[in-house]
């Protein structure tokens, strides 16, 4: 807009027009959905009528009869496995996101602040990691470290750390040229205290929106690896794994596939709505 006019009108409307929904509405819906799914995932195990690993009937018994959601490929109660299956999704995706953020934040802050060779080193390693399809990377790392959920989780963290580091580095670079940061440097404050007191509080907001994005991405990735059968191994109960192991019975007992799939979808949509509102729409620029 004509810069002069902006001064006259003294209005800051620029970000608002970018949103799908007004931030508060998106935030509310997202929060409610997220709370529901998390509650189901955490409280679920206590409510499960059967043990998730026990065969209790014939395979793919249709839903509605003795079993509310029918049985799965091995004749286990789908409802119990759905109630148990949420926890692994939240725990492992959560840990992966936290791990990615710890690494990404540390790397990004120091590269952005120190500039010079650490910055170059980070950028080069980011180029390498980002030039590899994420899912292929995780499959490789997880199979190299022996199939199982821990390597998958660590690999998911590793593949996301560079992208986070890059965002943090850019934000740190932007902040470090601002007056109050240079004043602190001129005062001779240590790098740590400058980062902690001056820079981190000011980049918290853009990062908060990104956390939602990362968590969704972790859920997607880990669920996909489980779906391919290369993450969590049977007989574990996990929504992603359930979709793939019952894929054959989609004709006989669709609930065995569609219910875990829908819950995963609900979780992802909820987080997206939430991070959408947190970013006040800037995230979509």
């Amino acid at each position, binding site marked *: 807009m*004509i810069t002069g*006019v902006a*001064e*006259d009108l*003294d209005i800051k409307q620029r970000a608002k027009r970018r949103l799908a929904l007004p931030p508060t509405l998106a935030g509310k819906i997202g929060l409610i959905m997220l709370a529901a799914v998390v509650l189901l995932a955490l409280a679920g195990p206590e409510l499960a009528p059967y043990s998730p690993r026990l065969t209790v009937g014939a395979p793919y018994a249709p839903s509605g009869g003795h079993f509310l959601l029918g049985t799965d490929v091995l004749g286990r109660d789908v409802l119990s496995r759905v109630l148990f299956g949420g926890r692994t999704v939240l725990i492992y995706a959560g840990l992966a996101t936290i791990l990615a953020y710890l690494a990404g934040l540390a790397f990004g802050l120091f590269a952005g602040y120190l500039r010079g060779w650490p910055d170059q080193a980070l950028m080069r390693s980011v180029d390498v990691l980002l030039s590899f399809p994420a899912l292929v990377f995780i499959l490789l790392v997880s199979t190299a470290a022996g199939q199982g959920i821990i390597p998958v989780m660590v690999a998911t963290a590793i593949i996301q750390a560079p992208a986070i580091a890059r965002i943090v580095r850019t934000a740190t670079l932007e902040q470090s040229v601002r*007056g109050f940061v240079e*004043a602190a440097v*001129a005062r001779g404050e*240590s790098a740590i205290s400058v980062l902690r007191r001056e820079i981190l509080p*000011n980049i918290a907001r853009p990062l908060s929106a990104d956390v939602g994005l990362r968590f969704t991405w972790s859920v997607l990735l880990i669920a996909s690896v489980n779906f391919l059968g290369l993450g969590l191994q049977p007989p574990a109960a996990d929504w992603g794994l359930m979709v793939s192991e019952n894929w054959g019975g989609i004709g006989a007992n669709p609930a065995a596939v569609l219910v875990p799939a829908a819950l995963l979808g609900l979780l992802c949509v909820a987080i997206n709505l939430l991070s959408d509102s947190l970013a006040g729409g800037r995230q979509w620029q």
Partner: protein
Amino acid sequence: MAMTASPDRVLDAEALRVELASGFPVIDEVSLQLSRGEILGLVGESGSGKTTTALALLGYSRPGSVITGGQVTIAGQSVLDLPDAARRRLRGRLVSYVPQHAGQALNPSLRISAAISDVMRQHETRSRADVMAVLAAVDLPASQAFARRLPHQLSGGQQQRVTIAMALSCEPPLIVMDEPTTGLDVITQASVLEEIRRLREQIGAALVYVSHDLAVISELADRIAVMYAGRIVEEGPAATLLARPRHPYTRGLVQSIPDHRRPTRQVAMPGIAAGVEDRPAGCAFAPRCIQQTPVCSEAMPALITLTAGHQVRCVHADETPPVTLGEERDLRAAARPSPVLEVTGLRATHRSGSETVVAADDVSFELGGGECLALVGESGSGKTTIARCLAGLHRPDRGVISLHGDPLPDRARKRSLAQRRAIQYVFQNPYESLNPRRQVSDELARPAQVLRGLSASAARAEVGALLDRVRLPARAAGRYPSQLSGGERQRVAIARALAAEPEILICDEITSSLDVSVQAAILGLLADLRAELGLSVLLITHDLGVVSVTADRVLVLQQGTMRETGSITQILHTPAHPYTRQLIAAAPVLPVPVTESGDGQGKRRAISKEAAL
């Protein structure tokens, strides 16, 4: 030359009103008249509605605001009652627009020739030769090679000339210019102003020139209209208005603009301009007006005509005293104080992309105790990099900086506590100088804790005193920066510097992003602090007016090399180096206003052609 109401009236705008979506009037009751070949200067500070008015003349309102009242007739053609499509066809042919930042206004992916012919084609089919003619008209090389260039391949001045060429391409009777020279350095600005003057004579078009800088307007305009809080508060022939301003705001403006020819202390205007939504009832200027009476804030005063062509919106217009100039600064060369800071053979560079730019090459100078040394030069002349080297924020390639004789390590972290206390830095942009996430009290207490080892409570106790010293109310301590105006934030930044009880204060363009009225107040504060605390000040600026108000000695820089150094009187009155002379000549100045003795006179100056870039 005052223009009487001649038959070929070009512009006749009546009671223009533009409202925000929320209904608040951005501008109201704006009436302007303009005849052929006349230049109207529209002056006002940020938030006064000058640009909105300019755009309203083209029948354009920015999204989020709407033109709700008034009439605009250009060359007999009424604009506002036309539907959008018809209104669009008028623009460019009947009235054209020159934007403020030419760099952003030109389409980056269109060659100049294409951009100009785009405007032309809208109205009649014009050939390539006409494009060349228009380029020549604005003193740009009329060659095929030049015409094929892209905007980023032109200098700032050239870009601005292209936008002017686009405005002229259909020879409209009225051209609206919105601060076309603000982004340019003073020498280029002078040449562009010269260009505009020449065009006015040659094509006789009427010009509305919008600016926040009264000095620039005084160089060009035949008549001036001053806007404050969305209304015209005074309008009249340039000479009479500048010599004897009748509205207190205009008088305050004239007083706060420094004139480098007469180094004086400034008379600051109190208070700040209110935002659109919180303008007071009655006269908007009342809260800041020295001759304010209860009647002022009862109703909005009407625009009354004093003499033919001179109107003012103030009930006490006739009581407005003439302009009182600050008293001359006694610049008799006091004995040179012993040097606190010496810089010898400083060379500093910085990398921008692949090229390394030499910011300072073999710069040496001294700063005496209690003395104010001004580093003057255009943007990119290296003055800021030198200052950052002094503060330990930039590592110089060569050269020694010594404080009280002993050399300073290049990095702030490596300097002793005392050395870090001695030099404090105040940054240019007030909106970036304070940490938005922390209260003013925290920001002010921090330096004492770090540099003077005070406990948190002891440091916090000093905050009140610091705020007083920079003339801010104590309640500001609990505020966040976002709740303060630009001027208030800069005062807090200065207070933070003082918290360390420094010997040297480096002020890097601290007033350049503030309105002129607020600038005067800050410079006044700086002068008081020097008197009270005996501070040495290194002032970095490109504005000779600011130099004349505060500096004792001056160092002129061009592209990182020292051109000239000397006392304020030597530099301003008897400049030795041609570059310094060029700078002084190009700096716009107000005509000397009528003081009690009433002997002021308007004057014009021509600037030599070759100076233009």
